[in-house]
């Protein structure tokens, strides 16, 4: 960024008149902050010269609370971290505990977990695409995507009994098997979603105004993206092909064939389109899972009170927002001694000041939209 004219430099140059930088407080209640996030932007006219993010408005002390809860109860807390990708959060917790206990999951349970996580990735990305379009000013895609998301939410409800806070995964498996007629319903939902995604793709992805707003805006290169600890679509848009599903395959991701979209520009449009392609890939994965799945047990025998051995474990998985990790220090009790979450949106959000400085106020909103933060996860 070039040296900015300040009051002092202007006075030194003898430029008459005064311009004063304005501080704009965006949030905690603002339509574009996707939750209770606050950022203080210093703007020179319309151009952002400084951005200070403030988080913590949704800090509920989840990690501390986990130290006082049973592992079974912690699952309900994890539902409430990233509240648009609940299954993925639950998965990471139960994976961590299973890794600590050295527990094997029945094949069908693993497939069901994969299925639910991929479906949840679709719902989460659909929500992103819709709200991002809303950030750029298009008011229609969000409703199309809610329409499609609703189809999957209904499936979730039929599987777990809840639309968002599922509490469905258990240490050693899942709560219960898929309901009857699930395959047929899933297939019809998937084909409708495919149509819906194409529809929004036609409506938005290559729209001139949309390209105008997102192409080349807020670029971040791969090296600094890694440095900031970005993950997920934000990192992949910068050209770093880091996806936990291929990097350290968990569940049965080795058995399915899928592609990972990788951007090359690291701008807002790449971050957006990476997710659009991921939705399509997830649909592909779900189809493969449905073919491969065989009937069987869904739960290994465990004690009612899960009590993993002493030790430390870090487990992570590819959430819609990125690399979601859980670090558990266990002392062999019912509750973890220390539990720490690696929230991907927290890391992604850190890079915000670097991304928005030098751009327009309207771009700041768009950039925040592409980072796709969920405040439940950022503040925990």
């Amino acid at each position, binding site marked *: 960024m070039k040296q900015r004219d300040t009051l002092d430099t202007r006075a030194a140059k003898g430029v008459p008149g005064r311009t004063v930088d304005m501080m704009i407080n965006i949030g905690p209640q603002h339509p574009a902050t996707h939750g209770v996030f606050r950022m203080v932007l210093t703007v020179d006219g319309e151009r952002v010269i400084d951005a200070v993010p403030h988080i913590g408005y949704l800090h509920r002390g989840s990690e501390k609370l986990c130290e006082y809860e049973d592992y079974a109860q912690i699952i*309900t807390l994890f539902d409430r971290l990233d509240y648009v990708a609940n299954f993925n959060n639950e998965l990471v917790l139960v994976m961590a505990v299973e890794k600590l206990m050295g527990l094997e999951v029945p094949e069908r349970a693993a497939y069901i977990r994969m299925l639910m996580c991929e479906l949840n990735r679709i719902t989460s990305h659909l929500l992103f695409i819709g709200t991002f379009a809303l950030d750029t000013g298009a008011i229609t895609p969000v409703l199309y995507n809610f329409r499609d998301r609703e189809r999957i939410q209904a499936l979730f409800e039929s599987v777990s009994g809840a639309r968002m806070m599922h509490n469905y995964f258990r240490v050693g498996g899942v709560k219960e098997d898929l309901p009857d007629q699930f395959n047929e319903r899933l297939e019809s939902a998937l084909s409708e979603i495919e149509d819906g995604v194409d529809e929004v793709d036609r409506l938005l992805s290559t729209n001139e105004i949309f390209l105008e707003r997102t192409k080349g805006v807020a670029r971040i290169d791969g090296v600094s993206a890694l440095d900031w600890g970005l993950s997920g679509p934000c990192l992949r848009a910068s050209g770093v092909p880091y996806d936990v599903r291929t990097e350290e395959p968990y569940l049965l991701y080795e058995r399915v064939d899928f592609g990972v979209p990788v951007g090359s520009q690291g701008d807002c449009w790449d971050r957006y389109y990476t997710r659009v392609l991921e939705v399509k890939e997830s649909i592909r994965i779900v189809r493969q899972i449905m073919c491969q799945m065989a009937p069987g047990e869904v739960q290994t025998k465990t004690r009612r009170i899960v009590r993993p051995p002493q030790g430390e474990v870090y487990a992570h998985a590819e959430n819609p927002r990125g690399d979601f990790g859980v670090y558990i220090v266990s002392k062999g009790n019912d509750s973890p001694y220390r539990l720490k979450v690696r929230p991907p949106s927290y890391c992604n959000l850190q890079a915000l000041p670097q991304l928005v400085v030098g751009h327009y106020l309207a771009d700041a909103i768009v950039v925040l939209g592409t980072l796709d933060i969920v405040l439940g996860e950022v503040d925990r």
Partner: protein
Amino acid sequence: MLESIKGLVVTLKAMTQSKITVEYPKQHLPIQPRFMGFPALTWDEARDEPFCTGCMVCVRYCPTQCMSATMADNPKFADGESHRRKIIDQFEINLGRCILCGICVDVCNFDAIEMSFEHELGARGRNDNRVDLAQLLEMGTQYQAQSGWEQSKPNGLSPNEKSIRDAAIKTADSTRIESSEPQDVR
């Protein structure tokens, strides 16, 4: 420019398609059979009493501590009409605190608590959503009627389960004194 016109076509086409929203208070979307609404207590038609024995296992496992219960001696056991030695005396759930996780249903040994279909609940005060035993049983019987509920853990308990149940009753007995009053949350 072509792309913009493509967008206009998409929206125009959508305009001719059918509506997908429903007018909520007049019309409801179907509830799935596994739907987890607020917890309710089930009613044992055969013996005309609740299944719940007040063993407090749900109270202890509730992540938000939204329940409280007390148990009493079952008069019907003395008469020989029922196999339950203990029976629920008071039960209160603060539905405003309940997070609908279903853990209470998982841990219950007697099928006494179920997640009902009840989900529309509004109140004006922070603690106005407390429901007592009578209301819970009413919700429960309604749920049983709606869902064709069947007991999945029949009364002929295996010896193992029996011992679990007895242990639960024992622990519940010992904790009874501590929380015999319905807990007050400001």
